[in-house]
């Protein structure tokens, strides 16, 4: 998924707004599949998307999207890219169906083709009969789907989704994340999706790019972010279960510590032997083994590591991102 031709290539990109340096000589390559763009508010995510669309010129550096230079081929880029903006963009007195048809035509599709495409993308995003009603009466979830439909209407090769889960309740958020996943995996359209909630991107993206104060903090595959930590999470049921289990494991020479209602068991050296030991120990003690799970790192742990390493200057920024993620460990309600 990641080793195909890059959809976006950015070299030394700088955007100076005068009082604010939005992007600071950013160099980056974004491949196919789904790429999550993470950063606190003001980290430069939206600025980067607008520059990639060829809407605003960078102060310095250069960038290519789908092989087109942003400085000279903005039109070609915008014909092949779909964009879901962060803010409201739907007129309330128009139906989703008419709206998507119109915007498909604005991307160059002939009227008949635009009608067919609109019907198809509205079906894919899950807007059924309500597509014929004015969008002013839509719930936030339905509005986000309509916004997504217009971004897909002209069958783009790349979609830029700016905070697509913003303001959604947990069920709608799950549905939207599912759609984002399908776009990247089933539809074969490259996706760049921004969020300031780390837990979300962990679930949908193949690659994660972390921006901080307009600079690249880290870019790598999501699974590298989420390397197994070598720790097993264990939960047992019974009288004073966790403490007895921990004591037994420690006496067997395995490091075990309490973590809430569970145990952290260090299995770095001999994972299989430790698993057997846990099973046998629980059996010997007559405890019910209800959880034995590999503990993955979360993206916010990466931030925590970076924070520990970071110099004093950028700690504040990192702290903002880290706190945001920690407050919503599983991408919960904002």
């Amino acid at each position, binding site marked *: 998924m990641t080793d195909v031709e890059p959809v976006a290539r950015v070299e030394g990109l700088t955007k100076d707004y005068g009082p604010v340096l939005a992007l600071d000589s950013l160099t980056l390559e974004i491949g196919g599949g789904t790429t999550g763009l993470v950063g606190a508010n003001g980290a430069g995510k939206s600025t980067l998307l607008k520059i990639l*669309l060829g*809407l*605003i*010129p960078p102060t310095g550096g250069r960038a290519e999207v789908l092989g087109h230079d942003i400085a000279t081929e903005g*039109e*070609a880029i*915008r*014909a092949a*890219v*779909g*964009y879901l*903006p962060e*803010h*409201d*963009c*739907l*007129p*309330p*007195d*128009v139906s989703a169906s*008419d709206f998507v048809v*119109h*915007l498909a*035509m*604005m*991307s*160059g*599709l*002939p*009227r008949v*083709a635009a009608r067919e*495409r609109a019907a*198809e993308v509205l079906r*894919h995003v899950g807007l059924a009969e309500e597509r014929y009603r*004015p969008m002013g009466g839509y719930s936030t979830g339905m509005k986000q789907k309509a916004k997504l439909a*217009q971004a897909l209407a*002209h*069958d783009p090769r790349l979609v830029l989704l700016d905070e697509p889960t913003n303001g959604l309740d947990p069920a709608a958020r799950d549905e939207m994340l599912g759609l984002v996943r*399908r776009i990247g995996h*089933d*539809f*074969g359209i490259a996706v760049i999706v921004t969020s300031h909630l780390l837990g979300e991107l962990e679930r949908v993206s193949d690659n994660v790019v972390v921006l901080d104060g307009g600079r690249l903090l880290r870019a790598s595959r999501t699974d590298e972010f989420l390397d197994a930590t070598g720790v097993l999470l264990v939960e047992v049921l019974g009288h004073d279960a966790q403490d007895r289990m921990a004591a037994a494991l420690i006496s067997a020479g395995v490091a075990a510590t309490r973590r809430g209602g569970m145990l952290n068991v260090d299995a770095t050296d001999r994972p299989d032997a430790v698993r057997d030991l846990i099973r046998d120990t629980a059996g010997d003690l007559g405890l019910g083994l209800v959880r034995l799970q590999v503990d993955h790192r979360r993206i916010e742990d990466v931030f925590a590591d970076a924070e520990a390493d970071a110099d004093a200057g950028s700690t504040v920024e990192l702290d903002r991102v880290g706190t945001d993620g920690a407050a919503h460990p599983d991408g919960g309600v904002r």
Partner: protein
Amino acid sequence: MTDPSAATPAGGSVIHDLGYRPYTGPRLGAGAIARALTLTGFRNAFGLGRSGKSKVLPFVLLALNLMPAVIVGGVLAFAGLDELPIGYAEYASTTQVLVGIFVAAQAPVLFSRDLRHGTISLYLARPLRSSAYALSRWTSLLGATLVFLLLPILILYVVALLGELDVSEQTREAGIAVGLAVLLALSLAGLAGLIASWSTRRGFAVVATIALLVIANGIVTAVQGISSEEGRSEVGEVAGLFSPYSLYRGLMGAWTGADVPTPPTSTGMELAYVAVFVGLSAACLAALVWRYRRVATA
């Protein structure tokens, strides 16, 4: 097991999920996109393709605007007059309030709505440049205004021909009226469009446009009235340069001999009137393009 080659299994129907299908058809260029946007905008200006409620105002105004022409036609037919009771060019001057309300009320439909609801960012993320967007919107408004101004002229002209009035004279006068209508439409579309593009609130744009047209015209009319009374008509001629309606009236007086206060009397002044008319429209259009370039890079 159903036969996979059958379109439907026995006695029932089935929906095949074909999954996502890429689009392989033609993709049109910027010109075709701009044309589609202009046509949609033109329809929207009359409430077509929008809610039923939004059709009421434009069509009521259009009906009111056409009613005198229809009545004149009836009078001409029954009374057998040998000239039209109202000149082609004078018509728009008489119904200038209706024209003003129409342009002021429909310009926000084309300009303010996209800004207010943020839809503009979806247009800007598509191939059309911001300047092409602004020009398309302006063309839609110009077209709608022209329909509003030219339909009565057409009705009067048809009535005059059916009434067997002198064809060459009628054609000449109607031609002058069309030229004046184009000049008026250019400036009104420019002014109203520019005001609407700076306002995300429809009501504000409507009031500001009507106020500008009415107040400017009121002041100019007062100055022209006083200067005419005082025998200083050159002051009135210069004052006429400061409002689209008085520009229209002045040129109408000079070109058709209609009775208006202080029309431009010299060729130089007539040229100045035309230059201000065209210059005003061009300035508004340039400001519109500049405005949308700012919106795009904001």
